[in-house]
Structures are given as structure tokens and as C-alpha cells.
């Protein structure tokens, strides 16, 4: 093969991997929207908050230490050397469950039967609140996140693909980031677990019942409030996974919450109610934007990815307003 063909394959491959990273963020949106009809604006901030909490546990940081020191004139920062990654992840999951319970207790239960726009506005408020809370709890400095996932280019893949080039060409081998490969594996595992959970467990069936029809689910004794806590807990877990993957790339900092912007075109394209849609949508956006940047980018000055993802999503929207896998909205008058 010529280097041009190999470079195109490399771009497609990396686009797929990047798409998986987008899908990890989009999954959290889908879970909550499917179960409660809420577009959770705070999903990106949840990923940030989960990653901050994880690093806090890993490094043994005392939450609210800046505030404590300011009020009491103390100089406390750490309670100890910190926890290992597994224990820290488990504790962070517990924190995200507590967060889900508090969201239901303090916010959602007062908004039952409200218009979707009211619920959406409430999540905007929640996002700003959590951003401030995360800052207050863990500080605004950039934190290094390392849970032992390897990163960097794969030497093995470079060596294998170097031999694919036709004779007479110079080629350095194909690049693939090990962190992206791990993210893809984790995303597959996550979707499998979520699918099995929703198909084969009693709670999963209850979740699907609520997603299909709130009123009908209530009449057969399913507690809407418990379901909301469960769904927000799962979305919190997904946010933690997304936070770990994105935080490992750039360090944990407040711009991590902006990854939600990358999930929006994925949702428009894949549909707001479909878990496979979030994955397929992510892959299409990832490959589409990378190929566009590779082929057309140099002709128009580059940096096309942000806007091209939305253009691609809008193009799909013209033909399938509910997204590729979303449920068709039929309203009878």
C-alpha cells in the first residue's frame, strides 16, 4: 500500500478511537434522557466532579481544605498518603450515588410533572452549582490523574504496520494511542453491562418501564423516585469513566466539563434515547471530523473539527430528526 492509503487508514482508525471517547460522554446524557426525559446539562460537570473526587481520594486531599483553613486559620491539606486506585474508584462511585440521591431529594422530587424545559433549566443550575462545589472541595489547580492505564503510541502496532507499505516508500508505521484502545475496550464492556442490566435484571426492566411510560410504571407500583436515583447513579458512574479517560489525557481541570460540547453532535446524530446510537453516533462523528480535517482541513486553514461535527449532525437531522436510532416522536392531537 502507498503511504497515502496507510495515512487514510490511520486517520480512520484514530477517528474511531476518538469517537469512542465522545460516546463515553454521550452515554450519560442518553441514560438520563431515556429514563426521565431530562436533558442533563450537568453531565460534563459530573464527569469533572467525579474525576476531581477520584484524584482527591488518590492523593489523600481533605475536601474543603481551603475553606477550613480560611475560617479556622489552620494549614490542613492532606489526611494521609491517599488510597490506591481501586479503592479510590469504589469510594468515588459511592460519592456519585450519594450525589444522585441528593439530586433526587433536593431537586427532582419538587419538579415532578414539570415541563422538560423547567427540568433542563434546573440541570443548568445544577451544573453551575457543581462547578463551584468542585472548586471549593478540591481546589482549582490542575491535577494529574493516573489509574494505571497505559498511554502513548503502540510500538507493536507501528512495527506491524510499517511492513504494509509498498517497496520504495518511506513509512514510519501507524500510530494508535494505547489509552484510546483501553477506552474502546472499556466502552464495549460498559455498553454490554448496561444492556445486560437493562434486559435481564428486575431493576433494569423497571427502568425500561419508566422510560416507556411514567404513568403506567407508577400504576404497577414502580417507584419513580427510586428509579431516578438509580439512573442518576448509573449516569454518575458513566461520568466517572469518561472523567478518567479524558482526565488521563489532559489532567483534571475545569475545562474537562467542556467535553459535553463534544457529546452534543453525537446525541443529535445517534438519537437521545439509544445507547447503541450514542456509540454509533460517536464513531460516525469521530471518523467524519478526522477525515474532513485530513482531506479538507489544509485547504481551509484547519481547525475544522468543532464545527464540522455539528454540520454532520445537522445533515443527519434533516433526514432523521429523531437521530439514527432515536424513537420517532408521534404526538396525537
Amino acid at each position, binding site marked *: 500500500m502507498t503511504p497515502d492509503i496507510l495515512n487514510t487508514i490511520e486517520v480512520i482508525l484514530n477517528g474511531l478511537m476518538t469517537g469512542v471517547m465522545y460516546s463515553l460522554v454521550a452515554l450519560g446524557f442518553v441514560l438520563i434522557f431515556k429514563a426521565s426525559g431530562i436533558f442533563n446539562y450537568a453531565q460534563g460537570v459530573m464527569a469533572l466532579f467525579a474525576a476531581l473526587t477520584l484524584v482527591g481520594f488518590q492523593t489523600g486531599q481533605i475536601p474543603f481544605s481551603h475553606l477550613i483553613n480560611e475560617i479556622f486559620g489552620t494549614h490542613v491539606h492532606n489526611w494521609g498518603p491517599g488510597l490506591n486506585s481501586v479503592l479510590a474508584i469504589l469510594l468515588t462511585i459511592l460519592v456519585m450515588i450519594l450525589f444522585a440521591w441528593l439530586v433526587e431529594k433536593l431537586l427532582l422530587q419538587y419538579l415532578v410533572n414539570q415541563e422538560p424545559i423547567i427540568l433542563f433549566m434546573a440541570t443548568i443550575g445544577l451544573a453551575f452549582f457543581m462547578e463551584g462545589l468542585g472548586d471549593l472541595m478540591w481546589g482549582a489547580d490542575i491535577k494529574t490523574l493516573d489509574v494505571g492505564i497505559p498511554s502513548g503510541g503502540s510500538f507493536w502496532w507501528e512495527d506491524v504496520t510499517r511492513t504494509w507499505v509498498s517497496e520504495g516508500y518511506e513509512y514510519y508505521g501507524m*500510530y494508535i494511542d494505547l489509552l484510546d484502545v483501553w477506552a474502546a475496550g472499556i466502552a464495549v464492556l460498559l455498553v454490554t453491562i448496561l444492556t445486560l442490566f437493562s434486559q435481564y435484571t428486575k431493576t433494569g426492566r423497571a427502568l425500561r418501564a419508566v422510560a416507556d411510560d411514567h404513568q403506567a410504571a407508577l400504576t404497577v407500583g414502580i417507584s419513580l423516585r427510586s428509579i431516578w436515583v438509580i439512573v442518576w447513579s448509573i449516569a454518575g458512574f458513566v461520568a466517572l469513566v469518561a472523567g478518567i479517560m479524558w482526565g488521563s489525557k489532559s489532567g483534571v481541570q475545569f*475545562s474537562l466539563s*467542556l467535553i459535553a460540547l463534544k457529546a452534543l453532535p453525537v446525541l443529535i446524530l445517534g438519537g437521545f434515547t439509544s445507547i447503541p446510537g450514542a456509540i454509533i453516533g460517536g464513531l460516525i462523528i469521530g471518523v467524519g471530523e478526522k477525515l474532513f480535517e485530513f482531506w479538507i482541513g489544509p485547504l481551509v*486553514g484547519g*481547525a475544522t473539527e468543532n464545527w464540522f461535527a455539528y454540520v454532520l449532525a445537522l445533515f443527519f437531522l434533516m433526514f432523521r430528526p429523531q437521530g439514527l436510532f432515536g424513537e420517532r416522536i408521534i404526538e396525537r392531537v
Partner: protein
Amino acid sequence: MKFTKLLTSLALSMSVAGVAYSDLVIPSLEYRTGPYAPNGIHFADGYADYFTLLNERDGGIGGVPVRFLPCETAYNTEKGVECYESTKGEGSLVYQPLSTGITYQLIPKATADGIPVHSMGYGRTSAANGKVFSHIFNYPGTYWDAASIIVKHILDQEGGDLNGKSIALVYHNSAYGKEPIRTLEELSKKHGYDLTLIAVDHPGQEQKSQWLQIRRERPDYVMMWGWGVMNQVAIQEAANIRYPMENFIGVWWSASENDVIPVGQGAHGYKAIAMHGVGDDYPLYDDLRKYVLDAGKAAGDGSNLGKVLYNRGLYAAMLAAEAIRTAQGISGNADITSEQMRDGMEALSIDAARLAELGLPNFGPPIQVTCENHGGPGLGAIQQWDANTQSWSLITDFAGADREVVDALIAEDSAAFAAENNITPRGC
């Protein structure tokens, strides 16, 4: 009778208040929140702590205390302009907008209001021409100086010949990131290197395409004009594709601990241009610890002392304080106005002896500002990151830019600005 007493006491309290409020007002347009907060906090702490030190140790500047007015911008241009409007009436002496976007908005406003703006190493580069930009200062150096000094460093590395070499510029796709392009294009004509421009959209969390391109094209050197998360991701991606870090050089806004520490060992050897010294091994820091930190008056918790952006905030405050002293000397008033501050900035002169006297020996190059030249000496050094010791060190002396190229560009751009805005250049 009661009414007369009331009037008398009111007049008395007003006169007392008048004395009590005689002070030097320094607004601080800072950002401690938002996506750029990790950098903004360090700068803001350094800026505030230096003025606190002057108040605590010396009772202010020339016997007049400094009144510090912090205002949160979150690095948002609209909020920055709001901060300016809400604080200018307090008798503000100088604005340090800490954002190229805010600086562009303040250039006409502050000039009309007669308040100087110090966009230290950022903002509009051609504001270095004091004949056109009477109230805007960007000493000790500009983006164009930085670009030229980096190219000079590359020339040194390559034995003075860049013919056939390639340089890629990875830049934030904004007015800030595009600033060095003209200079680099001019320098490429002069030195014969190939220039590749690679834009990264805000915020820069995803840069796979850009670094795949660099991996394919293998430029000999990569320069970076980034900010915030873009810097960390770029350095991480460079490490991932095993790009030689000693050939990766950032501007002074891509040069902090925040940019390299998250990348760990992979960032070892990364270089950047510096406008001032690194670390806290300066006598001034002893005073900072004694009068500010240990006294519980520091803006932060003290953990940022000596970090690059803390030092930059401190340097900016020191330059402002020295300009105030100069203005006090020129006007004969201790309690100066913003116009007198402008005069002080325009006559600012700091030599090596003065830096040593301030407790910052060799912290920066000597500075001489004039009516024509608001950009200062335009000197920069190269700093390099050591991941093992987690510290920066200066690996070159402070060197100057290619004045022949940079000054011609400044003259051209400022003339265009003057023509667009009907400004008649001052005679200096």
C-alpha cells in the same frame, strides 16, 4: 441646631474620609473561576502579594498605601469590560487585563478615559508603538519579539542556518494564537525555513488530527502558541508520538508548571521562552514569606510561590509599583492620577542595580520604556523543564529579537491602526 450639628459632623466625617481614602488604586482583572482558573490564580496571587508586601513592609509606595481592587473576569471579555467600567471611577491607576480579548476592548476605552493599560507580553503587539498607542504598554516584550527570539534560538541550535528546515506552529485558533504568524512568515522568507501552520480550536481538549499531521510531516521544530488545557494536551500528544521535546518550544503563555506536570516524565526537556526568571531563589521571597505569607495575608495558600505564573504576576506588580515611583518623582505628588501614572510608565527605567535593590537580582533584563517604544527591550531567554526535579531552569541568557523584521511589522501595523482610527501619531 440639630440640622447644623448634622451638617458639621457630616462635613467633618467627609474630610476625615478624604484623608483616609488617599491611596493608590490598583484594580486586578483576575480569573479564579472558569476553565482558565488554574493559570489565572497563580498570576493573581503573585500580583496581589507584591502589593500586600509593599503595604505591610513599606506602608505603600512613597508613603501612600495601595488599595487593591480585585474583579473576577473568568477570562470572559464581556465580564472584563464590566470590571473595567465598574472600577475605573475609583481612581484606578493602571489596568492589567490579563487577556488579549479584554485588552483589544480596552484599547479605545482606556485611551479615551486617560487610564494606562499594561498588557505585559500579550494583547496587541503593535501597541509597542507609543506614538500611536499613547496609553497602551506591552513591555518587557511582545508576541513578535517572542516569535523572533524562538527562531533565533533555533538558529543557534542549527549552527545559524535554517535553509531546508521545517518549523510547525501549533496555535490557539484565536486572535492571540494568530499573532506570531506574520512574524514567522517574514522570518521564514529571511532564513529559508518552511512554515506549517496548525490551528487548534478552543479549548483544545482534542488534538489528535493536529499531532497525526505533525507525526506524518515530521517538522524539525514545533512552536506552540497555546493557553489553558490546549498546552497540556499538546505536550501530552507530543510525548505520545515521541516528538523530541527539546525541539518543542512554547511561548511564555505555554510555559508554566501547569502545562508540564500533568504529562509527567513525558514532558522532560520541553522548552519555552521566558520573560523573567524562574523559581523562588531571590531575596524578595524572604520578605514575601515574612510579611505576607507568615502574617496570613497572602492571596493564596502560599503553595504557588516561585511558580512561573506567580512570578509573572509578581513581576507585573513590581513593574507597576516602579512606574508609580517614577510617576511620583516626575509629578512631585505621592498620590498620583492615572495620567501621571501613564507618564511614569513612559519614563520607566529599571537597571540591574535597581532589580538587585528590589530583591530580584537578574530576575529580568533591564527595562527602558520611552515615548516611542512602549514594548520595552523585547528580550527573552529560553527555559527548559526538568521532569526529574520538577523545575524549570533558564538555559540561555536574555537575548533580543530581530529588530529589523519586528520593528518594520510594528510600524506597518500601527500605521494601519492609526489610519483606521483617525489617530495622528504623537511627536516623541
